[in-house]
């Protein structure tokens, strides 16, 4: 569960995010949409304590993230390619994350088997460093690594971008099944309205740092969002 109160972020005099309060309950698939500059990545960075809030707090399962590091035990994320370690092979990278999450090698190997389809034969046993992979394949590795060790909260920034259509569909299935079977909380931002409405049960629309809509998904949600973005 993530609780946001009086959270704001200013750069110079400019407010880039201003959220009086927002609560994301356990097991929710939370979708974040908005045009460039709406504050999506800023919000994720604040939740991950990567930038300092100008006011307010984010608390993750009752822990205020800027004061205590313990939230890291239950949370994982993939924001962009800077989350990858370029000089490792995908196997080593998975192992590194698994080691930090106290997942044994045997468990990891077994767990990775379910992703054989997702990887499409392009990731494992390639004897290649991550820095030499294409952007799409790097993304696959980053997303899968974020799922290692069954974290309770998973944050994915633009997970569908750069993926090929087959992988996009597989990723949607994966997220839905994890959210259902393991009660994982997902925070997903996307420019792809169709994917995000399909996979999430709540959509929040940001505009210039402010919350404009907070929608519990209905069959009309996609049309509603499209109407907004048409302007």
């Amino acid at each position, binding site marked *: 569960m993530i609780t946001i109160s009086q959270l704001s972020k200013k750069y110079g005099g400019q407010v880039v995010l201003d959220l009086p309060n927002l609560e994301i309950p356990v097991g929710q698939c939370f979708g974040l949409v908005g045009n460039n500059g709406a504050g999506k990545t800023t919000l994720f960075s604040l939740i*991950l304590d*990567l930038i300092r809030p100008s006011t307010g707090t984010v608390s993750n399962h009752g822990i205020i993230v800027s004061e205590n590091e313990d939230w890291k*035990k239950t949370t994982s994320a993939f924001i962009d390619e*800077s989350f990858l370690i370029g000089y*490792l092979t995908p196997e*080593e990278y998975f*192992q590194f994350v698994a080691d930090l*999450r106290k997942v044994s090698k045997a468990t990891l190997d077994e767990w990775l088997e379910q992703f054989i389809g997702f990887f499409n034969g392009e990731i494992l046993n390639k004897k290649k460093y991550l820095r030499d992979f294409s952007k799409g394949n790097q993304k696959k590795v980053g997303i899968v690594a974020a799922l290692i060790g069954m974290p309770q909260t998973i944050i994915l920034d633009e997970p569908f971008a750069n993926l090929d259509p087959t992988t996009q569909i597989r990723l949607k299935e994966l997220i839905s099944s994890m959210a259902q079977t393991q009660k994982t909380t997902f925070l997903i931002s996307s420019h792809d309205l169709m994917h995000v409405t399909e996979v999430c049960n709540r959509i929040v629309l940001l505009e210039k740092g402010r919350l404009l809509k907070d929608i519990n998904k209905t069959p009309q949600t996609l049309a509603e969002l499209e109407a907004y973005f048409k302007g």
Partner: protein
Amino acid sequence: MNSFSFRAFNKKKFFRSPQWEMKLVTRILIGFFVLYMAASFLLLGLGLHYLLEKMVPEHPPINVINRVFIYYLFVELLFRYFLQQLPVTDIKNFLLLPIPKRRVIMNVLFKITFSLYNLVPILIFLPFSIVSITKGASAVQMLLWWLGVLLMVLSINFLSFLINKTKWIYPVTAIVFLGGLLEYYQIVPVISSAGQAMQMLYEQPLLILAPMVTFVLMAQITFNHLKSQFYLDTGLQSKREQVLGMQLHFLDRLGEDAPLIKNDFRLIFRNVRARQIVLMFVLFLFYGLIFFTQDIYMDSPMWVFAAIFTTGGFMLTYGQSVPAWDSEYYSMLMCQNLSYRTYLRSKWLLMTLSVVLAAALCFPYLYFGVKVYALILAGAIFNIGLGTFITLFSGAINRFPIKLNVKAKAFENTQAFNFSQLLFTLPKILLPVGLFWLGKLAWGFKGGVLLLTITGLLGLLFKNKLLDQVVKFYIKGKYTTLEAFNKKD
């Protein structure tokens, strides 16, 4: 087109880079250093004539210089190869713009030619020539000779640029050594032939044509080389490398720190920049040989200096960029199930292991006496107990991101070890030297060694407390560090 200028781009690049204020300060300090060096060279140039007259009275100074000039050129090449920073131009941005390739390349050539290193022949040999003229040498002969020297040095400069990313320096070194040997055993007089050639250049001013042609040729070759690099798939493409297999199971016994230390091993051996650290580790092991072999340094603070460096080479070179090595994926580390404490403790452990390994490898220094090895051990204990923590502190302030993946190509700068980084190491050296000096003042050599050891042991005793402080310091700077690392330079 008139508004376009490489100079303006470079200016912007400097002033808009993260932490440019810090860079400016180091530049100013470097500026002073350069001035000092320039003054020294100038003095050498002015005095060279008299010096040689005194040392080798049977030959005119110019003949002496000519004879050894080939060695001078070789030393120039070595220095440039290992120290000179290559000019960097971000040419990728210009590939599709309507700017003639010729112009971009000429810009690089100019940058190569107007390097500070090229002032050396002007500062040394021009005053020398002028002094020689006042002593009665022919002005035409002397000045043309100097011009020849300048052109040769500039040609060497191009040569060092061409071979900088290759391993050609080693065969060249071998050839010079072979030449020296052949000369020494009087088989083939290679070196003295080179000396005679230089002498002919002096005596027959028309021969100035030879260095001129060489210079133009070298410039042309460099030009062609740069031109051939001008495609995305040659000079600018990063080549895929073979994976260096590293299982590193032996590190598993380190427990919680194992994954991070394994990662650091991979970092060090798989990245161009980081690989230099291994070289530094080995080179510094031999550092003591400079000081422990000479009587004038006996018991002096210079010994401490040497002792700290012999075991601390890795600690100093790796540690001064501690979070920066991880700059490319620092945000990822900050989101992992990994506390700052574990992260920093693993870095401390890695540095400690390197010092212990170095201290063990320094065993042969016993040859120079128990005293020497005792000092090395004391220095090692100081390094472990205190040096590591000071290094971690200084690393936290060093927020220049390191591009690990910088590939060896003509337009990129891969020289990681430079003077500005050296400046940061000064306090780490002065403290132990001071401690030793104090101890020695009070209780003699043994007192100095003892004071160093005790300080180190105290550091070890309060290891957790010190680590707490380091952790606090890192957490305090977390957002600033992340911001600096995430800035795309």
